[in-house]
């Protein structure tokens, strides 16, 4: 067990389909400045930084070189991390590991993306084997659509169950001034939106966004001194799976199941549905907001549709999920996972504005990447 670590500041940009007003390095500067201000620190207080994105979206390599100015990294140790969709949460995990190791006191984690600068689906398709799988793989949507076809068949889940999740996240985004897509939608609107890739429709799917997020981690002594109410890291767990898409178990999500089981063990959580007060989950499509609930141990396999229909995960439900509007409202891919961590931290710190859930003591954040791996981070108001 490493040192105890808390999150003491979070900053994010106003996310949009296209941030013509700011270059990549300028949106990074925005997020970093906002996080420093949130923590009432200056760049001189930062001992090391971790930054991540997916190079092939911008076709500019070495963000750890060209963004040094905006990052505030002159003459500081910088580490670049890139793990596909989980980049943001892995950047967060690395920020945590840096502090927990005892080698650094205050670490800045930054995730960012300028998705508008290229074709996202074509870039994502390069994750799959070029000789054997790429031609059949439809970017991020293909496997998500396929896995839900399997889940519907196995457990009787419906397209409407997914639409309930889509409407929830999209309507929650109305309370988030940073969200990219803020529109009031009904379940009916979702079901009637154009089919992208059966059974996923336009309003079920995440957008591609420009944006950045920065989160500041500090070791216990510093966190206590610098922040009245840090969000303490109770657990941070990563799990990867097989190489080929066809190798994976798709009626549940093994990496999420294993990562969350390990994280719950570390954090002493036995009944996640009851013990968490809020969750910010990386749900790239509304279908994941049905299927993956099983794999977070909220219920038995196949029971998730019932919870979704009951309203368990609505803002006034037992466990509000994605008060921020989630990934289907905002998706600057390298930042997306870190926004989950940052939003969960703000919920603990009481800084979530109009989307604040009352009296949050424990919060869950997740990241999803490739096909299919999972990051899980648990934050708490009390020291772990």
């Amino acid at each position: 067990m490493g040192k105890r670590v808390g999150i003491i500041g979070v900053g994010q940009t106003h996310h949009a389909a296209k941030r013509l007003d700011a270059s990549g390095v300028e949106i990074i500067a925005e997020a970093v400045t906002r996080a420093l201000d949130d923590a009432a620190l200056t760049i001189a207080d930062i001992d090391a930084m971790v930054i991540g994105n997916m190079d092939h979206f911008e076709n500019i390599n070495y963000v750890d070189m060209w963004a040094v100015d905006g990052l505030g990294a002159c003459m500081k140790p910088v580490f670049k991390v890139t793990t596909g969709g989980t980049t943001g949460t892995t950047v967060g995990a690395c920020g945590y590991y840096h502090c927990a190791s005892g080698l650094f006191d205050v670490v800045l984690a930054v995730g960012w993306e300028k998705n508008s600068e290229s074709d996202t689906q074509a870039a994502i398709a390069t994750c799959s084997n070029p000789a054997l799988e790429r031609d059949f793989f439809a970017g991020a949507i293909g496997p998500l659509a396929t896995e839900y076809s399997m889940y519907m068949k196995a457990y009787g889940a419906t397209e409407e169950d997914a639409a309930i999740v889509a409407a929830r996240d999209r309507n929650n985004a109305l309370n988030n001034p940073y969200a990219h897509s803020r529109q009031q939608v009904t379940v009916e609107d979702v079901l009637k939106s154009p089919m992208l890739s059966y059974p996923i429709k336009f309003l079920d799917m995440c957008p591609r966004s420009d944006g950045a997020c920065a989160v500041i981690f500090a070791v216990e002594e510093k966190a206590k001194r610098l922040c009245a109410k840090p969000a303490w890291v109770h657990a941070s767990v990563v799990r990867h799976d097989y190489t080929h898409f066809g190798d994976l178990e798709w009626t549940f999500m093994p990496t999420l199941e294993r990562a969350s089981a390990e994280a719950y063990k570390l954090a002493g959580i036995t009944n996640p549905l009851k013990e968490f007060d809020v969750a910010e989950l990386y749900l790239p499509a509304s279908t994941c907001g049905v299927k993956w609930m099983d794999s977070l141990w909220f219920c038995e396999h196949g029971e998730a549709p019932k919870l979704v229909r009951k309203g368990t995960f609505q803002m006034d439900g037992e466990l509000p999920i994605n008060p921020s509007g989630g990934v289907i409202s905002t998706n600057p891919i390298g930042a997306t996972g870190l926004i989950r961590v940052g939003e969960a931290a703000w919920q603990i710190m009481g800084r979530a504005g109009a989307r604040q859930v009352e009296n949050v003591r424990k919060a869950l954040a997740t990241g999803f990447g490739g096909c299919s791996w999972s990051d899980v981070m648990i934050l708490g108001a009390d020291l772990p």
Partner: protein
Amino acid sequence: MNIMGLYEDKRKRTHTPEGYELLTLESGHLEYDFHWHLGYCWSKFLAGLKEQRFLATKCSQCGAVYMLPRQVCGRCFLEMDEWVEVGPEGTLEGFTIVRFPYIDPNHGGMMQVPFTSIWVNLDGASTRMMHYCNEYDEKNLVVGSRLRAVWAEERTGSIHDVSHFEIIK
């Protein structure tokens, strides 16, 4: 101070505060070639397709039969040296009918839609392979359906030596 307007919501801006247009640099069409080395297992697998055979590798420890074949069993972290033939029939395990067009990373042109992407579990294999199905109506695609490989007339040692899978009626 704060010329960059770090706290403003600037999402709708089209010009700088001084009135200059916010610019975008167009890269033009970028194209460069890669040469991916397929190695022992995939070269042998693709040679098999040319002969209308699906060759899979089998783990001597856990017994898993991998389609697509590879050298190491991920679960056991053990080298596999046993090859078995699977298919050419199998079971449809999942599908999607892709209707949104996007750029094909193979050549930069647009993908032809709709296309049906499937996961098929070939008889005798423990894992699935991805391929196409020639059915484009979700009402006619049922998870659990039986499928058969349709071979391309001209086979060159590529994954497209299988033209697609068809539903066995």
